[in-house]
């Protein structure tokens, strides 16, 4: 304000110089940069897994099957992540490897019996009923030719060869994972007419919602 009073002519000339469309475009660019670059970083918080779990070590070195930990229970439900108790079947007293994370896991979880609060990248909201049983190789490979890894990676991050667990991005507003599948992603298959006859699944609301 004071400056304008001191240099009224300059002020006017600046205004004229920048008159026309310039401020508009400045605003446009600022908004675009903010919206496309800054905003996503602001919306998501980055979190690491409480324990760095190496799928690579378990699959390649220990030659474990995925289903050793991620299996179906007798009642048809999917066990999801193993409990500390089942991890402790191998990781009990002495660490099996060199990784300090393993030692920490044994100390902090196995010895205390605490469950690890794993971040689940594809965790679906409560209102979604996802049947792992229905999305089986038998069903999908009626037409496709998926390997197990290929099938799982349709939705999940392919962690099989990862030594370091990927960073988990949590949406600060919704508290869901960044990788939580949206409905349209489910609909890539469910709304696909060719799936109906073979899988007998439809795109009906209650096929997936609870």
């Amino acid at each position, binding site marked *: 304000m004071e*400056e304008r009073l001191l240099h009224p002519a*300059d002020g006017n000339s600046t205004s004229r110089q920048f008159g026309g469309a310039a401020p508009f475009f*400045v*605003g446009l660019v600022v908004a*675009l940069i*903010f919206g496309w670059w800054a*905003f996503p970083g602001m919306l998501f918080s980055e979190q690491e897994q409480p324990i760095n779990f190496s799928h690579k070590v378990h699959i390649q070195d220990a030659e474990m099957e995925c289903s050793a930990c991620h299996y179906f*229970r007798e009642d048809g439900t999917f066990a999801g992540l193993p409990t500390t108790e089942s991890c402790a079947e191998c990781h009990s007293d002495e660490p099996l490897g060199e990784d300090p994370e393993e030692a920490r896991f044994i100390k902090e979880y196995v010895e205390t019996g605490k469950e690890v609060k794993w971040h689940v990248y594809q965790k679906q909201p*409560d209102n979604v009923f996802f049947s792992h049983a229905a999305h089986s190789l038998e069903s999908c490979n009626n037409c496709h030719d998926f390997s197990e890894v290929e099938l799982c990676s349709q939705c999940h991050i392919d962690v099989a060869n990862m030594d370091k667990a990927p960073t988990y991005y949590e949406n600060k507003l*919704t508290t869901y994972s960044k990788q939580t599948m949206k409905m349209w992603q489910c609909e890539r298959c469910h709304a696909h007419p060719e799936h109906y006859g073979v899988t007998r699944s439809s795109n009906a609301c209650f096929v997936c919602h609870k």
Partner: protein
Amino acid sequence: MAVDRRGFLKFVAGATTGVLATPVPWKLLDDASIWTQNWSWIPRNVDGENSYISTISKLCPSAAGMKIRLVGNRPVRALPDDNHPLSMGGITALAAAEVQLMYSPSRVKRPLKHSGDGAYVAISWEEAEKILKENLRRAGSKIAYVSGDETGTINELLSGMAKESGSEDFYVMPSEVQPAARAFAAMNGNGQLGYDIENSDYVLALGANILESWGTVLRNRAAFKQSHPAAEKPTVKYVYAGPVQSNTAAGADEWLPAKSGTEAIVALGIANLLIKAGASVNAPDFAEFKALAAQFTPQKVASLTGVTPAKLKAIAVELSKAERPLVLTGSEFGQGTGVATVLAGTAVNMLLGSFGREGGVKALPLAPKVIASGMDRSEIADKDLVAYLSRISAGKVPAPRAMVFYEANPVYGLPQPAAMAKVMDKVPFKVAFTSFLDETAQACDLILPTPLGLERFDDVETPYGIGQAFYALARPVAPCAVDGKPAADVLLNVASQLNMDLGFATYEEVLQAKAEAAGADWDSLMEGEFFTSDAVAEQSGLRLGAAVMGKALAAAPKAAKLSIAPVQKLNIGTPNTAIPPYNNKTIRRWELQKNEMYVAMNGATARELGVVKHDRIKLTNSSGSIQARVNIFEGVMPNTIAVLMGFGHTAFDEFSKGKGENVMELLTVGYEAGTGQSVWNVAGVNVSKA
């Protein structure tokens, strides 16, 4: 660089345009709506592995068998158990809420001491046990124990402790059990009366609320279910006699309106007709019984009970035509009935040849007691709590120095509760073992939280009403949700410190011994199996108890002009549970509105009283008074007011406290001539507009 207003506006316009071309508004719009399905104050689903544990309910008077569903280690549902003889694929409205009761707001969370100024003080278990021990020692033989459990071996423990300290004062809360046991004793019988409803082909329930609250309800209902195939003619006729068209009447094939407390008279009226038609019983006092029954002509029965002669005759004919008829007697509200009622019903069964016959009445053997100093079931049945408290109240016996309440809520659940509460005031030390902060606990000096039946080991032995000997364990399905300790363990510990010799160090040993005594296999019991036996107790010299009946009926109170008919419904809970949180939705609209209860009467009675629906009335008699609103229900006998039990709690939580009033206030205790049994199933009342 200075920016003037116009430049700034252009900037804003540009920024606005730009933002619209970014994900910001659209992503926020979408995420905001996702946020609304994920509000932090709305509980989340917590997943886990499903498992099921079979157990038996200690909370529901039906002793419901049930499967508890756990998710991970969390119990979430009490489900029916198809294979359990006390579930048979069904569950009661009360047992269905049992898991939820673990987290009831009214649970006692930790041991509490009632301080001088009336406040509760949380104390440690150590301190609690110390206070308990000292007071029990100080009380010496001047101690009384009151149990709210009908079927558990804990009663042997409690009565054993009483006896060890030199007291005979152990009592169980009154129910149908005591009159039945005393009746069978009066008949010179051996064992417990059992009813083989499932094999009967004609069921007459005199007062016994068999489809709602009488006996092992789920088993009764399973028999009803079997005999009433959907959309077909029933294979077994169920007749219910009582003053109100209750839930049992709604299911029964015929409702026989009969005044409260007149079940024995109806039974004798039927006996009279059966004898006239040639029926007899080989019993030493049959002649006496015949003479007694002859007094109850259909006309007399009609005038006393309201059952028309034609109806009575029709029922008698149907009974005698049936192959395996069965008569069940009891009180519509599960208590307060006399010994004569059960005797009269059993006599009719004997006249029908139903005693000891399939589909009839059986004498079930009971397991011998395992705690030597404790009382067995028949001894316990002789102990009349209401009579005891009344004697104290009248100054005939001194008040004890200490009273121990085990899962019993006499301050709410006994007739004339105000008088009972006054008796309590005379007792210097009272302790309550309870899961919920009930009325009795509120009146106690020490409140000790017990785990629920779902959180502890306990047992159920042959509940009254069942047709075969039975034994099962209640097993903990989850850790206690509060800082509770099983009363049996606490008491055994205290007993040993007081140098009482009960013969066992832990309650598990007691239960093991009991299981063995019952003939059950402990290991299979521990897996949720149950023990049943079709063995019957041998009888010799069985009498009809005609003399007892004669005395009782000669002095039976005359029905008042206007009488009360209490109505019991399990969904509204028991004195021990009050109304479970999920169950107050099951209370019908014209049973309770806000905090006002409704009482029901038929239109003719209402007209006579000059009241209409929704009128506020005051019900008064010599015992007390309650306020209520009027509901018109044509399924109530003339000059009768149906009052729902289970309201009027002054303790517990927001789901039951202060809702309506307690009908027990209006129930006047009398004593049955000849037996001295306390009875309160006949109550007159006066109505005035409030």
